[in-house]
């Protein structure tokens, strides 16, 4: 009895520590402590569970915990910040796997005595879980480029997927009516696994982040379902928190990318939009600039805004970017960073990279904060960003990124763009900014270009 109370108390504490933890993420100052409290909550929940009478053998549990911790530490300590998206994707897989297996175990155990409510819960748990396992793995594979990142599509894809999904749901219904049908149960699970793959196939690597956080939300729903199935409240609450969070993020992301969320949800998104655009680049030419000249411009600029993009992540050039900034500041110039909400490939991507390079976060200004400052800026240095500075989003209603809010780089007195070639960005849209008279291009890998610039600026 008292043990039961202890467990319940632990769960209650855990639930609220989770909420506290997420709340603390509203400011970078409180964030770290808050998440440590959340971790403490998790610890409490685990202890609270281990002291239950239900649990009789510990050796296996300890084995599992040990193995899990070892792997967890291993895959967390060295993973580079640029690999975050796939790192997160893969761990959704583990979460979903756990939920699914628990679901199966529950089903095998209680099959005969399942109440309707519980069967519904178990069904959702296993269906969502299975779907998340394979989905997350696919996302991981694409981001890691184990499989080609480009969308893989075939005719009637959507109809096909929807049919499969309908099938799975039908099986679920059948099970709710009569739970004791293991065959159906496992077929449903299998369908779930298949759906996970099919769901992610048609999605381009660049769109994965949306999928990843959607899968985050599914994983959450799966654990919530587990909570309903084994009536465990902390599971329900944690699941609900994850569910909303993942959903909210993917909505925010697709909105910032100016995609309707349905468009994101229903496959075929991520197909590189056919680059038919108002801008015909054939007879346009971009001015390229030498490292020396670029260095001089930067060195004598009073105000510089660095605009990082996906390219900086690819080149892992964040440290060189900071060094350049410091060099310029040493010479009395003022340097700020302009962070577009969807710069890079996951929300907050640029912030993490630059934070890693010791850039104080109060110099990372988001779009609203900095967009008016470009007029007053001598040089805007675009480091591997493209779509997020593409004026077509303002001017060309035909373009797929039309309507997406962008950074007003084109309003700066002069613009230097670091990229390897003229190839377009994620959206596949040509960028008129490159051909703007006040723009010059510094071609080459962002990392090396920046390194050279640093050296030059220091020598001036």
């Amino acid at each position: 009895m008292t043990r039961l109370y202890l467990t319940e108390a632990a769960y209650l504490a855990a639930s609220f520590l989770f909420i506290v933890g997420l709340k603390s993420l509203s400011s970078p100052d409180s964030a770290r402590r808050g998440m440590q409290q959340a971790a403490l909550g998790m610890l409490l929940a685990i202890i609270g569970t281990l002291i239950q009478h239900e649990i009789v053998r510990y050796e296996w549990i300890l084995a599992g915990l040990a193995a899990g911790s070892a792997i967890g530490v291993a895959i967390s300590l060295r993973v580079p910040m640029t690999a975050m998206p796939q790192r997160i994707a893969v761990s959704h897989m583990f979460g979903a796997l756990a939920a699914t297996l628990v679901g199966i175990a529950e089903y095998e155990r209680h099959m005969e005595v399942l109440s309707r409510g519980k069967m519904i819960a178990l069904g959702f748990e296993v269906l969502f879980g299975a779907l998340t396992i394979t989905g997350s793995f696919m996302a991981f594979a694409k981001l890691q480029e184990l499989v080609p990142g480009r969308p893989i599509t075939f005719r009637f894809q959507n109809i096909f997927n929807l049919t499969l999904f309908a099938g799975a749901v039908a099986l679920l219904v059948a099970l709710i009516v009569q739970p004791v049908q293991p065959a159906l149960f496992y077929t449903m699970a299998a369908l779930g696994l298949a759906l996970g793959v099919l769901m992610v196939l048609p999605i381009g690597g660049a769109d994965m982040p949306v999928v990843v956080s959607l899968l985050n939300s599914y994983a959450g729903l799966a654990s919530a379902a587990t909570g309903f199935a084994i009536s465990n409240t902390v599971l329900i609450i944690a699941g609900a928190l994850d569910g909303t969070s993942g959903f909210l993020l993917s909505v925010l992301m697709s909105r910032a990318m100016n995609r309707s969320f349905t468009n994101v949800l229903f496959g075929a998104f991520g197909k590189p939009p056919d680059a038919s655009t108002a801008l015909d680049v054939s007879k346009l030419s971009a001015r390229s600039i030498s490292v020396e000249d670029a260095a001089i411009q930067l060195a004598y600029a009073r105000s510089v805004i660095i605009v990082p993009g996906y390219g900086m992540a690819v080149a892992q050039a964040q440290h060189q970017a900071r060094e350049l900034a410091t060099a310029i500041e040493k010479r009395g110039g003022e340097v700020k960073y302009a962070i577009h909400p969807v710069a890079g490939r996951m929300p907050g991507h640029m912030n993490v990279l630059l934070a890693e390079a010791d850039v104080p976060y109060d110099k990372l200004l988001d779009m609203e904060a900095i967009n008016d400052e470009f007029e007053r800026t001598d040089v805007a240095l675009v480091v591997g960003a493209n779509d997020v500075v593409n004026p077509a989003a303002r001017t060309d209603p035909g373009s797929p990124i039309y309507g997406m809010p962008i950074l007003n780089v084109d309003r700066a007195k002069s613009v230097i763009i670091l990229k390897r070639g003229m190839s377009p960005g994620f959206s596949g849209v040509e960028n008129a900014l490159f051909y703007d008279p006040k723009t010059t291009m510094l071609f080459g890998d962002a990392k090396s270009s920046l390194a050279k610039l640093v050296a030059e600026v220091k020598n001036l």
Partner: protein
Amino acid sequence: MQSLSIIQLYVFLLAGVVGYQVISRVPSLLHTPLMSATNAISGISLVGSLVAAGGDYGRLSTILGVVAVTAATINVVGGFLITDRMLRMFKRDVRKP
């Protein structure tokens, strides 16, 4: 049972509302840590796994349970570690007060 699962529904929805209000106040600055934080929290399914692994409900349950425990633990440990690693990197400008 009936009324129990209904009130569980309340818990779910209320938690959802709380989640919505809390998350929608996380600045984009911290969206990546947020993703890995929720990811760590989703490791809570560990709680379910432990029971499956540790209770004596026969071979199958134990095996599934142990695998589940391992997987969930990876999430928990890994998730919180990474989140902390990221958050540690966010620093104020030291020169400013």
